[in-house]
């Protein structure tokens, strides 16, 4: 058995001494943690269908302004990226990341025969199925199956939420979801449940509820593993809203020595049929603040090169605005990639083509499963084909 130094110190009488050590001395433990170079993926889901055209703004495009007389963002308000492109005014920190070469923007991502139901399109994105397939497992769940064939605890993929998304459900293994790790840890430690488990272990019989006992035991083991190996201390100041708190949890887990490679967080709702600008601005400000705190924290701890933040939404919105100063469900959309370790930066491909619409909707150019293939192969270092069920040509930005 490989004894980790921290577990050893904890278990030995030195625990008190170690706790009294000032924080800067703990820094020498660094090589004890998940080694640098061990890549981590943070998926940021923008639920509700974010309007991509008011996120990455083509401010030299007349069609854009003609289609959206009430809600288009003026060139002077946008955060300038290039002569033709700007970001939504609330995303100024992303503008800084762009200047630093830590932001990649991929336009026109989607899939054939787009579905306009939130639920269905989200299922497609999370399961990585085609529009006419209904899958019961998610792409990260299948990644987990691959990673955790005979591992002790399936903690490679974690969602910061009260409930687990389809994306993290595998065939053999399921990811782990929690918002408050301490609460889950305490619930899993209830003496009655422990006695139940012990009794079940002694029986050794094939049991009706075996699978549930196993899930319960796994939950207990995984929670204990994460709880006991994480310091539960993020090192920065985070904004006090849901996304801020959730990214703080993610940072504290990344900076501890657990084996988690994928974190999943969501924010919403971006379903802006009415008065789009207020809602989108409010959510973008939260994202902007939370990412600033998160990236600053990672940089301070020299982990920004190893962490990739990827944002996506189930669909984009229609090019033309509606009568309520909002937009309705559309198709293709853009994705953000934020990391200190990008190979290609800035605008990764051309902007949406507003001259060749299909019934008023953008036509996708890049299948989102090619993005997944890229992340799996080039970042998480696994073979993408078995996980995605088909071969998709990876891109080269990481």
């Amino acid at each position, binding site marked *: 058995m490989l004894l980790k130094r921290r577990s050893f110190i904890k278990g030995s009488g030195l625990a008190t001494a170690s706790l009294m050590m000032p924080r800067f001395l703990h820094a020498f433990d660094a090589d004890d943690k998940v080694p640098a170079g061990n890549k981590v993926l943070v998926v940021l889901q923008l639920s509700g269908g974010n309007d991509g055209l008011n996120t990455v703004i083509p401010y030299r495009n007349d069609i854009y302004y003609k289609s959206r007389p009430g809600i288009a963002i003026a060139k002077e308000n946008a955060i300038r990226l290039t002569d033709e492109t700007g970001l939504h005014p609330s995303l100024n920190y992303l503008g800084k990341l762009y200047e630093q070469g830590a932001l990649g923007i991929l336009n026109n991502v989607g899939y054939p025969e787009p579905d306009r139901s939130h639920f269905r399109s989200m299922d497609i994105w999370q399961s990585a199925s085609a529009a006419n397939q209904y899958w019961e497992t998610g792409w990260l769940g299948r990644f987990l199956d691959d990673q955790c064939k005979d591992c002790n605890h399936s903690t490679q993929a974690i969602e910061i939420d009260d409930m687990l998304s389809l994306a993290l459900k595998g065939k053999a293994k399921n990811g782990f979801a929690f918002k408050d790790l301490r609460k889950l840890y305490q619930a899993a430690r209830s003496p009655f449940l422990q006695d139940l488990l012990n*009794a079940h272990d002694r*029986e050794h*019989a094939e049991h009706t509820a075996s699978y*549930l006992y196993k899930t*319960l035991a796994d939950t207990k083991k995984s929670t204990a593993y994460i709880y006991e190996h994480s310091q539960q201390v993020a090192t920065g100041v985070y904004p006090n809203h849901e996304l801020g708190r959730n990214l703080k949890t993610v940072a504290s887990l990344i900076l501890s020595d657990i084996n988690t490679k994928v974190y999943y967080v969501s924010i*919403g*709702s971006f379903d802006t049929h009415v008065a789009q600008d207020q809602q989108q601005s409010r959510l973008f400000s939260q994202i902007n603040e939370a990412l600033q705190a998160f990236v600053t924290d990672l940089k301070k701890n020299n982990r920004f090169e190893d962490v990739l933040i990827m944002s996506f939404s189930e669909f984009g919105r229609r090019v033309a605005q509606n009568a309520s100063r909002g937009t309705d469900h559309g198709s293709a959309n853009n994705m953000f990639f934020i990391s200190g370790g990008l190979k290609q930066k800035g605008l990764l491909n051309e902007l949406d083509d507003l001259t060749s619409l299909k019934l008023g909707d953008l036509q996708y150019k890049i299948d989102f499963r090619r993005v997944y293939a890229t992340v799996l192969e080039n970042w998480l270092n696994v073979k993408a084909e078995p996980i995605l069920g088909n071969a998709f040509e990876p891109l080269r930005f990481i």
Partner: protein
Amino acid sequence: MDFDNEEAAINFQRIMGHVLFNPPNVAGWPSGNTWIDSSSLMYRLQLPKIVSAGTDISVTLKADDDVQMGKTARPIRALSATIKWPLYFQSFVGIDIEKLREELKLFLLQSNTSPSDHMLDKYSKQDSREALLASRSILLMQCPEYQYC
């Protein structure tokens, strides 16, 4: 049992992952072992205790944008319900207290296995017939076996 708030009853079905007559997609409910995961199992196991004791709980469900149209989901807090214990106790009227333990198991669990009486005794209240019935029923409902009912 009467839920003080009918919406809460639906929400708890959603937490557990199975809303009556409303499967997640046209493929139906997940089959095999994918219907349950760590978080939904933990809620299921805690639920009987939460309802009976009126303990506080805060859970935010996944947003359902097809229904909410852009509004943010609020966390579900205390689930208040009144358990009609007297009605429940009537089902066991006339049963000898010695046989009560066995009857309860048959009544609540549909499985050939169940936790031992010895262990259940450790956590059951024994001071009266009613206290025994109530506390032991809650315990049995917290067993993984009960989730198959």
